[in-house]
Each structure stands twice: as C-alpha cells, then as structure tokens.
C-alpha cells in the first residue's frame, strides 16, 4: 500500500494550489450559469490575463501592477464576450469558443512580437506575487497547512464563503438565480435581467483574470503558451459538477485539484495510473450530470383517471 504514503502535507498543499484556478473559474462559471449565461470563454479570459499580467510585471517591475493589468485584461475580454453575446446577438457558446481561440492566438502573437520568444517567456525582471507567511503560525502544526500560500489561495476560501452568503442571503443572489431559472418571473419582480447577466459576466471576468495571474505570477513567474491548459473548461465542468452552487464548486475544485495533485505525484512512481486517476473527476461529473438530468424528468405526475 505504498501509494497511501503520498497522502501527506505536501500533497495537500499541491491539491490546494491545483484547485485554486479551477475554483476561481468555477465560481465565475457557476454564477454565469445561475444567471442563465453559458460562459465557455473563461479559458480565453484566463489566458489573456496570464499574459498581460506577466507583460505588465515585466515592464513595470512591480507585481502589483502586473496583477492589476492582468485582471483588467480578463475583464476586458469579458466585456468583449458581453458585447458579442448581448449587444450583437451572437450565440453565447460560439462567442465563447471564438474568444478562446482568439486569446490563444493573440497571446502567442504578442509573445513573439513583443518578447521575441516562442513557447514561453521567462525573465528575472518579472516580479511574481509572493506567498504570504503567517508569522503567528510559525512553529505551530498549522504552519504547514495554512501558511505560505499565495494570496489567491486564501481568496478562494474567502470567496467560497462570501459567494455562499451572496447566493442565498442577499437580494442580489436571488435576483441572479431568478434571472437564470425564469427570466419572466425576474422581470415581473422588477429585476433588470440584462444587467444581471452583465454583472455575472464581468464578475467571472475578474475571477478569470485573477486565475490567470495566479498561474503566471503566483505559481510560477513566467508565461507559457496555452498556459491555461484547459483549466477554463475544467472550471466549467466543476461548476456543473457542483450544480452551479458556490459550495458545490468549491468541493468539485478540491476534487479536481486532488486528482491533479495525485497525478503529479504519481508521475514519478506509477506512470500508468496518473492519467487514469485524472479521469476519475470527469467520469464522476458525467454521473452527476446524469443524476441531475433524471431528477428534472421526474416532475409531472398525471392525475388519476376516475370513471364515474
């Protein structure tokens, strides 16, 4: 049972780090889905943010500047998505897909044109975002578990809690959910459904932006082509798995993160299993979707026929 040995603190930390970008995207995707917007373009937003974050950090020498510009890039891309889908009437899924392809090409182009590199860009003058050490935890058993993560990680935990509150305990939350489930009911209640949709799109753009800079400025300080590596899509899958609720997404992200972390660990040990293990979260998502689908169908109970 040597494989049990891999379940240690280091795995835990790796899990959290893997889960973070997924969760960030997932929260955004969940909010969008809750409002009835199918936002596939999060991958592109993430990628743009990752690149701009690195570029800005490089040129300015400041990690904070990099972060701000990076997140702005995510938001700008989100606005592009919004304009295409809401103002110009493009199909949401199509717009999202096109944005992803666009972002991949754009970042590659800028990588070559601005930095004259292909594949990746790394430079000592890129300022990364440093991990936060909680000094008061030094020496305690909690040090290894809680301290020393980069800011976005803590943000994820905070968001899970905050979003839960917003979702279920604020007017905004109910307005968003109503917009997604029955826009007519929302409009009746005086809710501006278009504004709600814009809100969730921008919000997911911010989160995707943070996710992007997380990858390029927090985890490593470099930009790789196609850095988002499908995490944008995984986030969408996680939100489906979690039934588009904050806690569900949080749990799903941890789950995917676990798979990721185990996969990385096992790559040295059992080459075979890592990829198979990574498949498990996806298989489970499919199962969850089936269950949700079946539940929707068991709704209509016919009135019994009584002959007089």
């Amino acid at each position, binding site marked *: 049972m040597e494989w049990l040995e891999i379940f240690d603190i280091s795995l835990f930390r790796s899990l959290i780090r893997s889960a973070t970008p997924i969760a960030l995207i997932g929260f955004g995707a969940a909010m969008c889905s809750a409002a009835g917007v199918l936002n596939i373009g999060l991958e592109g937003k993430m990628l743009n943010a990752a690149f701009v974050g690195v570029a800005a950090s490089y040129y300015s020498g400041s990690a904070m500047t990099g972060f701000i510009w990076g997140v702005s890039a995510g938001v700008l891309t989100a606005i592009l998505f919004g304009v295409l889908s809401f103002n110009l009437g493009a199909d949401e899924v*199509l717009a999202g897909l096109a944005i992803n392809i666009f972002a991949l*090409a*754009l970042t590659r*182009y800028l990588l070559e044109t601005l930095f004259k590199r292909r594949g990746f860009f790394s430079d000592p003058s890129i300022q990364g975002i440093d991990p936060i050490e909680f000094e008061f935890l030094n020496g305690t058993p909690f040090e290894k578990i809680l301290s020393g993560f980069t800011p976005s990680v803590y943000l994820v935990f905070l968001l899970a809690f905050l979003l839960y509150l917003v979702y279920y305990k604020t007017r905004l939350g109910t307005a968003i959910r109503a917009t997604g489930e029955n826009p007519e009911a929302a409009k009746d209640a005086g809710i501006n459904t278009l504004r709600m949709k814009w809100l969730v799109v921008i919000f997911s753009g911010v989160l995707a932006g943070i996710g992007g800079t997380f990858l390029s400025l927090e985890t490593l300080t470099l930009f790789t082509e196609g850095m988002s590596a499908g995490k944008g899509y995984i986030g969408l*899958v996680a939100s489906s798995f979690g039934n588009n609720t904050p806690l569900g997404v949080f749990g799903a992200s941890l789950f995917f993160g676990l798979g990721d972390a185990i996969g990385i660990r096992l790559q040295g040990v059992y080459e075979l299993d890592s990829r198979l293990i990574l498949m498990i979260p996806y298989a489970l998502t*499919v199962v969850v979707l089936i269950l949700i*689908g079946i539940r929707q169908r068991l709704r209509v109970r016919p009135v019994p026929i009584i002959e007089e």
Partner: protein
Amino acid sequence: MDKFSFKDVLILITGVIITLGVAWIILTVTGFIPGEIAKLFYEGAVVGQRNIVNTLNIATPYILTSIATVISFRVGMFNIGINGSMYIGGLYAAWAGYKFTSLGHISHVSLALAISIFCGSLWMLLPALLKVYAGVSEIISTIILNFVAVLFVSYMANGPFRADPIAPATPRILETAELKQYFPNSQFNTGFFIAVLVAFLTYFILKKTTFGYELRSGGDGLVGSYPSRYSSYLGIPTDRSAITGMLISGGLGGLAGGIEILGNARYFYQELAFNQGFDGILIAIVGKLEPLGGLIASLFWSALKNGGLFVDYKTDVSREIVVILLSILIFFVSAQKLVSALEKLSFVRKLDSIFSRRIK
C-alpha cells in the same frame, strides 16, 4: 441553415474588409509594411507547387472536422467534442498501423481508417445517449470527453501501446498502412482526396437522399435544437436521427485523426496535439452549415494559415496573426443582430430576393 443569401455575402465581405483593416493597423503599428506582407502572404498560400500542396494538406483535417460539425449541428446537437474524436481515431489508426503485419497496402490503409472511424464514432455515443435519454447538455458532456480523450491517448501512448521504453510514443506504422505522400517537399497525401470525397458525399447524402433529408429536417438553426417538433410531427424518429448524426460526426472526427497519423505523422506520440476539432466548428459556421460551404471555408482557412506560416518563416511577423484575424472575422459573422440590422436597408432586401431567385 440559411442558404447563401445576399445578406450573408455582404456580411462576409464587410467582415473581411474590417479584418483586413485591423490587419493593416496591427502590421503598421508593429513596424511592418502591410503591402509587402500581403504579397508574401498570397505567395505562401497559393503560389508555387509546394505552397499549394501544403495548403491542401493542412486543409484535410479542417474539411473533415467542419463537415463533422455540420452534421451534428444539423441534427440539432451542439457538438464540441470532435477534437476528442480526432485523438481517439488517431490513436487507434496508429495502433492498427503497426498491429496488422500481413496485409496489403490498400487493405491495411482501409482497415486502419475504418478503425479510426469506428473509434471516433464510438466516442460520441455516450454524449448522444446522455442527451437523448437523460437530457444532459451535449455541450458539457462533449467538453468533458475532450479532456478524457487527451488523457486516455496520452496514457495509451505511454503505456499499452508504447513502442520503446524511452520515447512515449507508439511504434511507427508499417509501410503498408501509410497514406502515400506524393511530393518530396510536402506531407500532402491521399488523405486530402478522401476528405474532399467525404465533403461531396455528405453534400450528396444530405441533399439527395431520404436519409439525409431526415437528418436535416430537425436542426434548423445554429444552436442545437434537438428535438425538433417538425420532425416528430412528420413521423421522423428524431432520437434516432440525433444519435446517428452524432455517431457520424464522431466518425468523421476519428477519420481526420486517422489521416493525420497515417498520412503525416506516421506514429502517435504523447505531445501530438490536435486543435482542428475546435477550428472546425468556426469553419462550419462560416460555411453556413453546408458541406460544400465547409469545404470552401476550410480551403480558405488553410490558405490563410499556410500563408501565415510562410510569412512567419520569411519575416518577423508571427503566424498567429492569421488566427487573430480569423477570430475577428468570426466575431463579425456571428453577430446576428448586425445581420438583422442589415435587413432594414431596403437595397439589401431587394438584392437578397434577386440573389435567391438566381439560385434556381
């Protein structure tokens, strides 16, 4: 989907003009001379035997994936998983390529391609069943399967199908399984002709057979619209059509992957990455969800890509600019409201009806 109307042509032309304008700006701002670049571009796309042939080679998977998309959209399924089918088809074509040792050329190639079609098709079975019988969104399920496909083929190339202990790749396929390459300076192979054949076959089947009629009666628009009330009302079994459509589109995706392996790469290695499945969706949209439209759009797309490669090779301009421009074009073309805004102009309406009258 709408046949080509004047509106569509107008949108396309306007989109192209705008895209060209953007290209002009980008190039000038980054210090290049647009005119020169354009010339090189043109040269790279269609001038010279090597360039033309390379363009056609690049086009092969695009043709197949765009047609695969056309088919699944027209039965009402928004299928994003064709890329995954490509991986699966490619992997098993490679396997068939080295596994069967005592076959003649034609039988080996046919078998390998048949296997890639079969496997790619099987990959789409689950999403199809999930949608028809459990109402699970095919968008999400096909996205998931894309990931699973990448993981799966990576695992197989590393494990059970692995050639030698060092390189994570399958053994090279036998000569008898190769799709013949014709030119020494290009990977252009028989696969292109297969793809074009498929395009025409699809056109023929959709338009002129009862089977094709049943497939396309259902989906009547861009977004997956299964199930269609019209089809049910006519008595066409919509679930059968939807599943069949998905299987066929998966099969074509698998074929695209198979041809890439048998014709170009000749073995399956871990880093092999396919993207044509996604581009195929955009190409299919530009081609108005018609097989021939997809064919032409694919050629166009590949010409641009090849031109971009050439420009990239000869200058400092990155090839990615092509994809950027193409996405901008897609943004434009997909903006439905622009299309309907155009309708308001009376000259557009008039030209529109003349145009459609001309097409018989």
